[in-house]
């Protein structure tokens, strides 16, 4: 009986067990290091009633939005440019893969030296995190488009732009969307990291000052907010992702 309920709502039970675990860890390490779940939620709710906190949220939101836009547009452009030309793809693919494995946080001093402290640096830092996965997924998606579709397009003498619009993009959309989903998460992480080092505003800055002041209440509340936002956005994107991969199929079927 219990088993069937868990299978029906795995996410719900996961959250419940996480909360229980959180409370137990709190009992173990004490109030010096952690805030228990209920108090964290209450503190977050209190913060959410202040205008200052919303100022930080909107600052992060704007930076993230622009960074995401740049990541997606630039990533799509790079991925499509490489995906349509076999030689280019072969030449540049190793660079993309290497760029993916590099700890991009090591680049933050360079970004700060170029852009100075403030909004542009955060945006750049978010974008360099997000653009590589979008480009890689787009390139892979283009390579996975069935050859017959491309042949048909060239037989019909489609122009390059028509070919992108009516063949390549629709056929590659599911994979590209997965890339955007991953790019979304990484851009958010990048933006927050950028704020932690090179900013006087935003949630990342708030987190960094709270670390300096050893303010556990703020650290926990901001972390909770970030995790909630990231997990919710990811769940929605994942649902759309599965729908794209499996149009009209039953939700329990494994995505192909």
């Amino acid at each position: 009986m219990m088993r069937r309920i868990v299978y029906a709502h795995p996410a719900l039970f996961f959250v419940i067990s996480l909360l229980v675990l959180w409370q137990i860890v709190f009992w173990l390490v004490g109030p010096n290091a952690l805030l228990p779940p209920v108090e964290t939620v209450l503190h977050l709710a209190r913060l959410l009633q202040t205008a200052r906190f919303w100022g930080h949220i909107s600052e992060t939101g704007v930076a993230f939005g622009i960074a995401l836009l740049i990541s997606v547009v630039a990533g799509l452009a790079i991925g499509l440019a490489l995906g349509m030309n076999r030689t280019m793809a072969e030449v540049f693919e190793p660079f993309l893969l290497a760029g993916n494995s590099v700890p991009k946080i090591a680049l933050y001093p360079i970004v700060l030296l170029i852009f100075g402290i403030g909004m542009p640096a955060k945006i750049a830092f978010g974008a360099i995190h997000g653009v590589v996965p979008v480009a890689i997924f787009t390139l892979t998606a283009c390579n996975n488009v069935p050859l017959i579709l491309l042949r048909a397009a060239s037989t019909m003498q489609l122009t390059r732009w028509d070919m992108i619009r009516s063949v390549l993009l629709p056929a590659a959309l599911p994979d590209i969307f997965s890339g955007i989903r991953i790019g979304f998460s990484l851009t958010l992480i990048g933006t927050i990291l950028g704020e932690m080092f090179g900013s006087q505003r935003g949630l990342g800055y708030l987190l960094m000052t709270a670390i300096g002041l050893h303010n556990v209440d703020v650290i926990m509340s901001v972390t909770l907010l970030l995790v909630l936002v990231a997990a919710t956005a990811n769940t929605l994107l994942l649902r759309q992702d599965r729908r794209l991969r499996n149009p009209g199929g039953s939700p329990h079927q494994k995505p192909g």
Partner: protein
Amino acid sequence: MRIVFYRLIAVLLPLTILEVLCREHVIKPLILPAPSRILVGLLAVIEKGAFSAAILKTLANVGLAIVLSVAIGIAAGAVIHRVRLLRALLEPLFAAYYAIPIYAFYPLFIVVFGLGDAPQVLIGVMLAVVSMIVSTLAGLDSVPAVLGKTARVMQLGPVETVRSVTMPYAAPYLFTGVKLAVAYAFIGVIGAEFIMSGTGLGYEIRFAYDNLDNDVMYPLILLILLIAVAVNMSLDHWDRALRSRRERG
């Protein structure tokens, strides 16, 4: 061969342009020193050995994070694969995990574990272990059920079964998991060093940045990038060699 030539151009051309721009002071040395100067600086840094302790510290922590996350990841993956209830419970976590900004937990780790190596290694493990678990699950899923039954019919022991049935199917997935774990361990440990620590390459770069010491900062950044890329490329190369051997054999 032609491809390699193009790749060489793709690396050298921007570097040459950058070199000229820096030498002509179009780009100020305070922002970016000439690439040749960075390279010379890197050689000097390695030769003088002033940062050897920091380099070793970082590499040791990354190595520890890799070993831990691969071992824990495979073990946890095997257990989760067996216990279906656990898997159903954890699937949502795996789907959303890499959307969570793990660094946000770093301050908590410092509070709990102090400012030693433990928080940094823990961040590396937290980033790396989940991709190892997911890869292990995918690998175990790829073993056809009928082969598991065959092994039982032939009364193979657990060690024999793993060696001659499970591994041939799961190995490529496990290798992918290891590759991801290596990349994530680097990102996690170095990132943690940047945010707050007293040792390691990340700390030294941050220190040099705060002191506007570009002659140290840029060579060290280059060193991190070179190490990460070299490790990743050699794993990739190895992976490809294993795959082609499997296909031939």
